[in-house]
C-alpha cells in the first residue's frame, strides 16, 4: 500500500510541524484557563491547605462591594476610553485621507504613542498631571478654568487621567486601521457622488461610513479588548486608587494574585475576565456575519 504510506507520512509531517506551537499553546494558553477555573473552586488564601468550596469564591466576589465597584469601573473605563479613541481615530483617518500635505508628519505624531512603552509614557503623564507644576493644570489656568486639580490622586479625576492616557495611546493606532480601511474604498464612488452634488458630510454618511463598517467593527472589538488589558498606566499612575476608583478587573487580579496571595479569588477573577473576553469575541463573530456591510 504505497499510497497509504505516503499519506500517513504527509499527515505526520503536518502534525510534526504544528507540534512545537501546539505544545506551547497547550501549556501556556489552554491549560492555564482550565487551571484557573479549577483553582477558583478552592479556598486558599495565603499559605495553607486548600479547601473545596464550589462556587464560594464567586458568591464572595459578587457580594463584595469592591468587586462590584471594580466591574463598574471597568465598564466605565471600557465605554469612555473606547468611544473617544475610536471617534478620534476615525476623524484623523478621514481628514488625513483628504489628500492634505504633511501626511507623514501627522501620521508620525499620531501613531508614535503606540510604539513606546505605556509604562514609561505614564511617567511623563504623571509629570504632566502633577498638581503644582504640571502642564495640564497650567493650560487650564491659561483658559481660566479650575487649575488646582490633583489629577491622579483625587476621585473622579484619576479615572479621567487614565482614560486620557488610553485615548492618547490608542487613537493613532485605530487611525491607522481606519486609514487602511479607507484605502480599500473605490474612488469612483466618490467621483459619482461629487457629480451628483453630494456634500462632504453626505459622502461620509452614505459612502465612507457604511463601506468602512467591517473595519469599524473590528476596531471596536479591539478597543474593548484593549480596555480590559490596559492597566500599565494604572499601575504607574494611580495603583488602582484613590479608594479603588481606578481599580479594574486585571488590576484586581494582580492585587489578589500577587499582593494578597489569594489564589482562589485571583483564579475566579481570571475566569470572569476570560469569560468576558470570550463573550465579546463571540458577539464580534456573530455580528460580523449578521450586521456588517460587505458590499465592495
Amino acid at each position, binding site marked *: 500500500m504505497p499510497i497509504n504510506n505516503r499519506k500517513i507520512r*504527509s499527515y505526520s509531517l503536518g502534525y510534526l510541524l*504544528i507540534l512545537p506551537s501546539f505544545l506551547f499553546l497547550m501549556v501556556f494558553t489552554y491549560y492555564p484557563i482550565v487551571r484557573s477555573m479549577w483553582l477558583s473552586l478552592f479556598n486558599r488564601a495565603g499559605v495553607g491547605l486548600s479547601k473545596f468550596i464550589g462556587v464560594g469564591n464567586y458568591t464572595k466576589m459578587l457580594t463584595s462591594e469592591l468587586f462590584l465597584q471594580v466591574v463598574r469601573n471597568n465598564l466605565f473605563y471600557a465605554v469612555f476610553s473606547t468611544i473617544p479613541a475610536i471617534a478620534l481615530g476615525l476623524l484623523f483617518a478621514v481628514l488625513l485621507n483628504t489628500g492634505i500635505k504633511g501626511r507623514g508628519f501627522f*501620521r508620525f505624531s499620531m501613531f508614535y504613542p503606540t510604539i513606546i512603552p505605556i509604562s514609561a509614557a505614564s511617567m*511623563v503623564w504623571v*509629570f504632566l498631571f502633577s498638581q503644582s*507644576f504640571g502642564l495640564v493644570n497650567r493650560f487650564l489656568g491659561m483658559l481660566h478654568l479650575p487649575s488646582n486639580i490633583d489629577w491622579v490622586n483625587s476621585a473622579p479625576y484619576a479615572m479621567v487621567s487614565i482614560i486620557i492616557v488610553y485615548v*492618547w495611546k490608542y487613537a493613532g493606532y485605530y487611525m491607522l486601521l481606519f486609514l487602511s480601511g479607507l484605502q480599500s474604498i473605490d474612488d469612483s464612488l466618490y467621483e459619482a457622488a461629487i457629480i451628483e452634488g453630494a456634500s462632504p458630510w453626505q459622502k461620509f454618511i452614505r459612502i465612507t461610513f457604511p463601506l468602512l463598517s467591517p473595519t469599524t467593527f473590528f476596531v471596536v472589538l479591539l478597543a474593548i479588548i484593549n480596555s480590559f488589558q490596559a492597566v*500599565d498606566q494604572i499601575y504607574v499612575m494611580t495603583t488602582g486608587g484613590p479608594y479603588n476608583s481606578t481599580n479594574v478587573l486585571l488590576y484586581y487580579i494582580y492585587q489578589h494574585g500577587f499582593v494578597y496571595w489569594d489564589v482562589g479569588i485571583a*483564579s475566579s477573577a*481570571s475566569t470572569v475576565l476570560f469569560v468576558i473576553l470570550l463573550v465579546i469575541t463571540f458577539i464580534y463573530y456573530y455580528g460580523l456575519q449578521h450586521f456588517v456591510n460587505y458590499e465592495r
Partner: protein
Amino acid sequence: MRIHTEKWTKILIYLFLILAAALILLPLMWLSTTAFKTKAELFANPYHLLPEKLDFSNFRDAWSYSPFDRYYINTIVITLVLLVIQLITVTLGAYAFARLVFPGRDILFIMFLTQLMITPQSTIFPNYLMVSQLGFLDTKIGVMLPYFASAMGTFLLRQAFKAIPDSLEDAGKLDGCNTLQLIGHVFIPEIQSSLLAFSVISVTYHWNEFLWPLLITETTKSRTLTVGLTVFAQQAEGGAEWGLLMAATLIVALPLLIAFTFFQNLFVNAFTSSGLKG
C-alpha cells in the same frame, strides 16, 4: 464661491490636525526638554519649552543610579531570542496549516485562533504559577515562555504561504528539495515581508511589555527596561527628581522611537497588517 469655501475647509482641517498633532506630541516634547534641563533650571522655570542648554547630567546620573546597561542587555536578549524562537514555531506551523493536508487541520487551526482572544493578560496568574513550578522565576526564559507560540504570527504567515502559487512549490519538488529545504529556499524568500512585519510587531510588543516581566523578574539579573524604570522611579520618588526620571524614561523609549522615525513605513505596514488580519 464654492472654491472659496473649499479653501477655508482645507485651512480648518489643517488647523485641527496641527492642534491635535501638537497635543499628542506634547508628552514626547515635554519628556525630551525636561530630561535636558538642570535641576536648578527646572525649579526656576518649569514651563519653558526649551532648555537653556542641553545638559546631559540627568542621563549620566540616571545611568549611574540604576543598572540600565544590564536592563538593556536583558531586554535585547529577551526580545531577540524570543523572536528567533517565534519565527521558527510560527513558520513551521503556518506552513503546515497553509500547504499540507491532514485530518483535523481546520479544527486545530480554529483552536490556534482562540489564542488571539485569550490574551496573555487574562492568564497572568495561572501562567505565573506554571513558570514558578518550572523553576523559571526571575529568569529571562520565564519572561519569554508564554510567548513561544504565536497565533497572530501563525495566522499572518499562513496567509502569506497561501498566496504562493503551487507552480513554485512543484518546481522546488522537481529539484529534489525536502520539506525544510522547500521552506528555506522556495518559501522564505516569498514571505519575507510578512516575516518582517511579524518581527516588527513582536519586538515592539516585547520591548514595551510591562506587567508580565514585572511579575516574573525580581532582580537586575533578569529585569527588563520597562520594569527597571518603575523600580528606578520608586527609588527616586519623594521630590522634584523629574529631570532624572524623564531622562530614564527617554533611555527606555529611545531605541523604538529612533527605529520608528527612520522606518516609519515599516512600522505602519506591520501594525496595519497585524490589526486587520490578526
